[in-house]
């Protein structure tokens, strides 16, 4: 039942509102709304009960193993939340004078430094609000770099076919054409194809390394050479940074621009779809274009760097300069890991991924890249199962829910048929992974014996499989008063 369906005219959670306020006589009548908006009218208990119960219908890290590849669903330390919510941080107005912001600015500054050190870049801006915005920012800086050099011919951004959808989308948002580079059979970028593709029209290449097929591209130095020689810049999509944290640095690999998904590697919450934070790091030659604001240390204190200080900046990415509350969480997390904990995250994320991969392979599942090490994630393909039992990767995914596991990422990357992209992360126990393997085996057995049962999954969720085609055809995007009248007592 929707909260709207519980609404009754005149019902209120009235301890919450200020007492009777006067008519807004200062507002001309012709600008006043004629009909009041139909928000739910419910009591405080109804609200608490409704959203508490709804929450229980979610899988989440805090309740389930959630091996969603490319998303790094690891434990979100609870203390990060409570510290970011301290009144001094939470109640500070973005335009409050810096004297009332030295605490938060110290954290932001220290975070910039930590990110620089761990990525090997020479400057960092925390402004972008998520990974995709980090990409947009990064590509815009590449564009600014070329334009500043008077190089207007570069119209193409190279992007491996395995790349995340945001990469081509971001390139296009920045006015580039996205040109696909194929992946070789071993999962590395096809270097010959790359060589053939570069030229004076090449603005750069967007790479994820380890890539979204879950392997570290062994030819990265060669790739860097090819692109740099062609006058392009290398962009690093840091969504997979967790796999190499403290092991190898994008700056040392030759990247000019990177973004980091702090909500992945630095464990800030995914929140059912955000907020994230997507800081960007750059090599020295791209540094002038970093977005504002940035924090600079000045004597014992901190100050904002704005357009006045950074005339070549590409500008602002959001109104007030970024998802500060998320950056604070990431900072707390980074400090708890400390210098020694960074590599440890990579170590155990990689150990878990390789262990899970080995176990699934030993159980007879087919790996997309069996000859390779897994990074923090890996791919299995269920094309045999699909062919022999008629049970797809999506069916496996749905049936996993019944076994108490969130499904891995399905059908991504697009180049592997019937694939599951599996990322266990370092915070899961061996027992979790073993349980997942048992579930996969059980589902395959069921696929042989009773495929329909798998195809009809899930069976134990609050809802059976949802009709997505219907959702797109008969668009129902909002409750309306009319609907309520038609439905009678709702659902």
């Amino acid at each position, binding site marked *: 039942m929707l909260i709207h369906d519980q609404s009754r005219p005149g019902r209120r959670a009235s301890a919450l509102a200020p007492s009777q306020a006067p008519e807004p006589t200062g507002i001309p009548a012709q600008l006043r709304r004629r009909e009041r908006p139909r928000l739910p009218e419910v009591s405080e208990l109804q609200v608490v009960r409704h959203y508490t119960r709804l929450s229980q219908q979610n899988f989440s890290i805090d309740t389930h193993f959630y091996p969603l590849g490319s998303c790094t*669903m690891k434990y979100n330390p609870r203390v990060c939340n409570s510290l970011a919510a301290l009144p001094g941080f939470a109640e500070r107005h973005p335009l409050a004078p810096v004297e009332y912001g030295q605490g938060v600015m110290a954290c932001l500054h220290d975070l910039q430094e930590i990110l620089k050190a761990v990525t090997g870049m020479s400057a960092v801006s925390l402004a972008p609000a998520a990974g995709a915005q980090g990409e947009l920012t990064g590509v815009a800086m590449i564009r600014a770099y070329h334009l500043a050099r008077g190089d207007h011919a570069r119209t193409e951004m190279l992007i491996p076919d395995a790349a995340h959808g945001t990469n081509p989308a971001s390139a*296009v948002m920045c006015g580039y054409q996205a040109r696909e580079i194929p992946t070789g059979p071993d999962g590395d970028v096809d270097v010959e194809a790359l060589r053939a593709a570069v030229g004076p029209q090449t603005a750069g290449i967007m790479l994820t390394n380890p890539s979204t097929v879950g392997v570290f591209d062994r030819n990265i130095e060669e790739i860097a050479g090819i692109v740099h020689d062609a006058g392009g810049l290398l962009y690093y999509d840091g969504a997979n940074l967790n796999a190499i944290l403290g092991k190898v640095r994008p700056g040392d690999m030759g990247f000019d621009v990177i973004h980091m998904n702090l909500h992945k590697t630095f464990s800030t919450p995914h929140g059912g779809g955000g907020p994230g934070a997507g800081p960007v790091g750059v090599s020295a030659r791209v540094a002038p274009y970093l977005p504002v604001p940035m924090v600079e240390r000045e004597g014992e204190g901190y100050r904002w760097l704005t357009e006045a200080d950074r005339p070549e900046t590409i500008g602002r990415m959001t109104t007030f300069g970024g998802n500060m509350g998320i950056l604070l969480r990431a900072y707390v997390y980074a400090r708890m890991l400390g210098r020694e904990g960074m590599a440890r995250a990579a170590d155990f994320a990689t150990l878990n991924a390789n262990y899970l991969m080995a176990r699934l392979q030993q159980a007879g599942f087919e790996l997309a890249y069996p000859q390779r090490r897994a990074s923090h994630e890996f791919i299995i393909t269920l094309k045999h199962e699909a062919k022999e039992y008629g049970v797809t990767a999506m069916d496996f995914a749905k049936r996993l829910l019944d076994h108490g596991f969130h499904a891995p990422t399905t059908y991504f990357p697009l180049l592997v048929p019937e694939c599951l992209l599996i990322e266990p992360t370092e915070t899961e126990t061996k027992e979790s992974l073993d349980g997942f393997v048992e579930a996969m085996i059980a589902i395959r057995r069921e696929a042989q014996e009773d495929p329909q049962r798998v195809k009809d999954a899930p069976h134990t969720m609050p809802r059976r499989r949802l009709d997505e085609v219907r959702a797109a055809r008969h668009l129902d995007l909002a409750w309306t008063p009319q609907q309520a009248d038609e439905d009678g007592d709702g659902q």
Partner: protein
Amino acid sequence: MPFIPHTDDDIAAMLQTIGAPSIEALFDEIPAALRSGERDEIPPALSEQAITRLMRLRAQGDEQPSCFIGAGAYDHYIPAAVWQIATRGEYYSAYTPYQAEASQGTLQVLYEFQSMMTALTALDASNTSLYDGATALAEALLMAVRANRRCKSKRVLIPRALHPFYRRTVRTIVEPQGLELIEVDFDAASGQTPVERCAALAGDQGLAAVVINQPNFFGVLEAVDALTDWAHEQGALAVAVVNPLALALLTPPGEWGAAGADIACGEAQPFGMPLSSGGPYAGFLCSKQALVRQMPGRIVGRTLDADGKPGFTLTLQAREQHIRRSKATSNICTNQGLMVTAATIHLALLGTEGLEQVARTCHANTARLCDQLCALPGVERAFSGAVFHEQALRLPQAPNTVLERLASEADLLGGCALGEHYPELDDMLLVCATEQRTEEEMQRYATALATILNAA
């Protein structure tokens, strides 16, 4: 090892299964020359207890006095229930609801949010958030230009009375795609954006979109009906940028002019999001039904499950980057889900009546404060236009000096000086008194300002 559950036995057993001699060996595909070690620049690990001590100290230093700054972010009361529920692990630590059956909680919340936003804006469809108000406007303009098939140009009219940071952000985001942003100035007397000035800038190639900001950056209410009708006459789409709290009182964009605005967007921060130095907030974006396939961002739809029970799922995903890649309506992926969860709970708690009370109280408080301040010699309302809950004041002394003295002498943040963003308004201060400001605080402001101005 913080957050890592592996025992020595686990590690040994796992390596054996893998057939690797050590964890280090798992990294053997990385070229040796590239490997790096621990970085001394990163401080050593702190325990939870130690980082808590550090952060509490830092947060204490940031505790700010009573705040009369608005300018795009507003100090509203957030009921205690909002974040106690929103931070429940099931909301807090879930991902984007790709597996609908295991995410009905988040999905239904998002659908309810869409329903609340369409009710407030009187438009048909809403997405489930963009990063913030400024990026929502940028996306709205890209959307409008894509959608407006009648207009060949990518010219967009933007009021100069729109938040300067919105204008700057929009520029960063939309210029690479060749959009041309044309700024229309406000009337120095009223603070409004006159239709005539817009008309003067319409140009030959036509306009793809016209931005209408209600209230504008100065708190002033625009003649939205006339502007909307004019935009439509030009063949432009009318893109509303609204403070959604104001919609408790003001004509919703969907009813502006004869046909209503086509798109409405803005900042949802007033709905339960802490100020938090500027983020995370959430941008919202609503539109008419006809434009929904051009919308950026996630959209949730109600559908049926295999048993015919109603349920929720992400829909129209063919607009999105993970399906459409370079042809997507936007690159947005992670958005502001948790903030939207909070906003939904916040709005459910307030309800129609509660929201209206908050809006009225803000309006009344700002009016009352300004009455008090304008009783002082040399202080006056800078613009004649009616306002919602912000007011630009003209001061007889340099606003920045006044602000510093208000902070140090009366322990309050007196507002936002306009000169930095509008050089010609360098004698002006933008003030805002939300429902959080008490009589005592407003009195303190008036008394302190009197002292400061007298002393000069």
